[in-house]
C-alpha cells in the first residue's frame, strides 16, 4: 500500500520569509521525488491526464522518476508542456490532474505538481535540452502578447518548423508571469529560463511593440500567414466607490507591476517607487489578492487584511495560497464589503465597510452576499489594494475592425480558437476573462493546432 500522505515539500519559515522576496516553496530532493513517484498506482486509465489542460502523460513521467530517469521524465512532460517549471509552481493541480487521482479517494493524491516542478528544476540546473524541430516551412505567424498563452502557441508552432514572432507591449517578456506573479511564488529566473527555451526554439520576441498602436492587426495580416492574440486580462476593475482615487489606493495590477516588473521592492536601487503604509487592506480574495497581501507584508506592512464580501468557503484563491497567507499572518475580514474610502490630506485613511450575510445562490452558483443594515464600520488603513479582478484588455478590440467582441468585452472565439477574422486566432484571458496560467496554455495548445491546420491547407 502506498502512503496516504504526499511527501511534504520544505518551505521557508513564515516568520523569516515575510522579510524577503525569495521563493517560499523549496522543491523536492531527488530522494523525496523518487519516494513520491513510487506512490503512483500507474492506472491503466489515468484520470490525471484528462484533468491536465495540456494533456501531459502524467503516469509515464512519474514512472520515469520512480526509475530515477529524470531526463526521460522531462522529455515526456515537454512533449505537451513547454513551461513545466512555471506550471509546477503555479498550476492549481488540486482542481486538475490531482483532483482525478485515485489515491485522493482515501488519502492525499499523488504530488503531481511537485514532481513536475522537480524534474523541470532538475533540467534547468543541468542545462535545458532543445528538441529537434521539424523542417523549416515558409509560414510566418505573429503572436501578440508573451504571456503563457502566447509562449505556448509560439513554442508549439516553432517546433513544427514555422517562423514565429512574438510582439510584447512591455519591456520584458512573460506577461503575467513577469508582471503579476510575485518572485516568492514564481522566481523571475525560472520564467526567464523557460522563455529562453522558447527563444532557443527559434522564436523571435520583440518587446516594446504595442499591437494596435505601434503596428495594427491589419498590418500584421499583410505580413504573416496567421496571427494569435493572447493579450490577457490586463484591465483592472475598481470598486467605483467614493474616495477610490485618493493617494495610497492601488489596483492589484499597479501594486504588482511596480513590485514585480519594476522591482520597486528594491527602491531606491531601482527607480520605481511604491508606497506601503503600516496598515493595508486588500479587497478581494482571489490568488491576486493573496499575492498582493503577501507582497504588502514583505514591503513592511504590519497589519494586512483581506476584505472579502463573501465567506471563507466562497474564496476563489487556491487553498495553498490562502494557507500560505494565513501562515504569514494575513488577517481576514470575511462577509465585509467596502462602501467608501475616506482620506486626510489627499491620502486614504479609512476604509468604510458594511458587514454582509449570505443569501440564495446567484448566477455564479455562490451564495449572494447581502448587506446587513446598520452594520457599517471603518477600518483604519494607510494603503488599499483593489484586487477584485481584471477585464480583457480592450486595446486591440478597439483598434481592429471586424473583430467580434463578447458582451463581457472578451475576444470571441470558436472552439478552436478562431476569431471572427480569417487567419486571426486568440486564446487565454483575452477570450475568457481572468483565469489561470495553465488554462491559457491549454487554449494556446488548441489554437496552435488550429493555426497549423489553417496554414498547412
Amino acid at each position, binding site marked *: 500500500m502506498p502512503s496516504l500522505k504526499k511527501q511534504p515539500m520544505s518551505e521557508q519559515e513564515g516568520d523569516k520569509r515575510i522579510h524577503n522576496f525569495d521563493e517560499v516553496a523549496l522543491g523536492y530532493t531527488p530522494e523525496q521525488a523518487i519516494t513520491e513517484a513510487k506512490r503512483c498506482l500507474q492506472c491503466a486509465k489515468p484520470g490525471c491526464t484528462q484533468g491536465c489542460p495540456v494533456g501531459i502523460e502524467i503516469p509515464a513521467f512519474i514512472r520515469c522518476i520512480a526509475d530515477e530517469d529524470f531526463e526521460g521524465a522531462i522529455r515526456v512532460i515537454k512533449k505537451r508542456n513547454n513551461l513545466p517549471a512555471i506550471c509546477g509552481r503555479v498550476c492549481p493541480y488540486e482542481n486538475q490532474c490531482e483532483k482525478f487521482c485515485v489515491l485522493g479517494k482515501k488519502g492525499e493524491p499523488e504530488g503531481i505538481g511537485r514532481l513536475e516542478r522537480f524534474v523541470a528544476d532538475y533540467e534547468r540546473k543541468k542545462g535545458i535540452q532543445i528538441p529537434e524541430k521539424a523542417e523549416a516551412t515558409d509560414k510566418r505567424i505573429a503572436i501578440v502578447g508573451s504571456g503563457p498563452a502566447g509562449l505556448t502557441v509560439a513554442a508549439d508552432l516553432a517546433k513544427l518548423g514555422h517562423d514565429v514572432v512574438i510582439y510584447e507591449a512591455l519591456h520584458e517578456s512573460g506577461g503575467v508571469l513577469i508582471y503579476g506573479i510575485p518572485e516568492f511564488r514564481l522566481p523571475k529566473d525560472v520564467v526567464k529560463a523557460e522563455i529562453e527555451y522558447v527563444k532557443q526554439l527559434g522564436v523571435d520576441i520583440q518587446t516594446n511593440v504595442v499591437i494596435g498602436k505601434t503596428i495594427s492587426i491589419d498590418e500584421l495580416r499583410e505580413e504573416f500567414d496567421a496571427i494569435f492574440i493572447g493579450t490577457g486580462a490586463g484591465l483592472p476593475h475598481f470598486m467605483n466607490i467614493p474616495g477610490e482615487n485618493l*493617494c*495610497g489606493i492601488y489596483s492589484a495590477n499597479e501594486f504588482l507591476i511596480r513590485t514585480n516588473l519594476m522591482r520597486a521592492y528594491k527602491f531606491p536601487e*531601482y527607480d520605481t*517607487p511604491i508606497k506601503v503604509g503600516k496598515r493595508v487592506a486588500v479587497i478581494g480574495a482571489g490568488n491576486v489578492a493573496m499575492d498582493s497581501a503577501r507582497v504588502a507584508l514583505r514591503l513592511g506592512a504590519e497589519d494586512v487584511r483581506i476584505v472579502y464580501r463573501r465567506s471563507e468557503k466562497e474564496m476563489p484563491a487556491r487553498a495553498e495560497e490562502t494557507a500560505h497567507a494565513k501562515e504569514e499572518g494575513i488577517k481576514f475580514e470575511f462577509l465585509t464589503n467596502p462602501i467608501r474610502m475616506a482620506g486626510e490630506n489627499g491620502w486614504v485613511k479609512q476604509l468604510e465597510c458594511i458587514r454582509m450575510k449570505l443569501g440564495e445562490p446567484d448566477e455564479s452558483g455562490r451564495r449572494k452576499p447581502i448587506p446587513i443594515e446598520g452594520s457599517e464600520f471603518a477600518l483604519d488603513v494607510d494603503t488599499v489594494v483593489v484586487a477584485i479582478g481584471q477585464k480583457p484588455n480592450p486595446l486591440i478590440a478597439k483598434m481592429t475592425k471586424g473583430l467580434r467582441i463578447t458582451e463581457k468585452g472578451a475576444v470571441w472565439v470558436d472552439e478552436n480558437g478562431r476569431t471572427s477574422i480569417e487567419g486571426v486566432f486568440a486564446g487565454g484571458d483575452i477570450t475568457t476573462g481572468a483565469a489561470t496560467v495553465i488554462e491559457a496554455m491549454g487554449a494556446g495548445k488548441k489554437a496552435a493546432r488550429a493555426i497549423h491546420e489553417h496554414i498547412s491547407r
Partner: protein
Amino acid sequence: MYRIVAKKEVAPAVKSLTIDAPLLAKKARPGQFIIIRIGEEGERIPLTIAGLDVQQGTITTIFLEVGKTTKQLGCLNEGDAISDLAGPLGNPTEIKNYGSVVCVGGGVGVAPLYLVAKALKDAGNEVISIIGGRTKELLIFEDEMQQASDELYIATDDGSKGHHGFVTDVLQELIAKQKIDRVLAVGPTVMMRAVAKVTKNHNIKTIVSLNPIMVDGTGMCGACRVTVGGETKFTCVDGPEFDAHLVDFEELMNRQRTYITEEKVALERCGRCRH
C-alpha cells in the same frame, strides 16, 4: 535599444532628444505620447512627442529635467541609447476645422502643442497661439509656433518677454475681442486648470492633455486614473486629452504628488550625473 541621433538644449534644463524609432515615427499622430525606460534599473515614464521625421525614422521628445529619470536622460548624448521606447500611446488629437482655435502652451507643453497647432492649421483653422514660461529663457518653440499659428502671443511670469503675467490673461483678452470656437491647452496642470476656469465662464469647448503618473501606459495599472465628468478614466488609454470642463484637477494634482518623498530620495542618489 533605441539610439539617440541628436541632442539639443532648448532652454536651461530643457533638453530635446531625437531618437531612432522608425515604427513609431510612421505611426505617431499629434497628441499621442511615448513611454521610455533608460535601462535595467530605470522607471517607465511618459514623454510627449515634439517632432516626427518619417523619412529619417526618428521622433523627438522635449522634457524638463525635474526628477532622476529626466536628469539622467538629459545626460545622454548623441550616439547613446535607451533600452526601451514604446508607443505611440494614447489617442491622437481630434483634428477638424473648428473655425477659430486658441492653442495655449506652458513650459515644455509647448513642444507637443506645436504638432497639434500645425495639424489644426493644415485642417483650415484660424490658429491663435499663446505660449508662456516663467522667464523668456524658458520659452521654447517660439519660431515653430509662429509658423504654425496665424497669431502668436507670449506671456512670461516676470515680464521678460511679451505680456507680463499669465497665459490666461492673454486668453481672456482674446475671448473679449473675438469669437473663439475651441481652446486646446497643454502645460503644467495648474495652467490647464486656470485655462479651464476662464473658458468655462464663456462656454468655450476646451481640451487639455493631462500628465498624471503612469507605469505601463497601456491600460493595465490605473496609476493614471482621473475623474472626468464624475467617471474614472485612464489617461493612457481613454486620454490623454479630455474635456477640460469635466476634469477634476484637484484630484489630479493630489495624485501627481504621491511620490514626492521618493522622488527626492531618488534625485539625491543621482549626484553622479549632475553637470
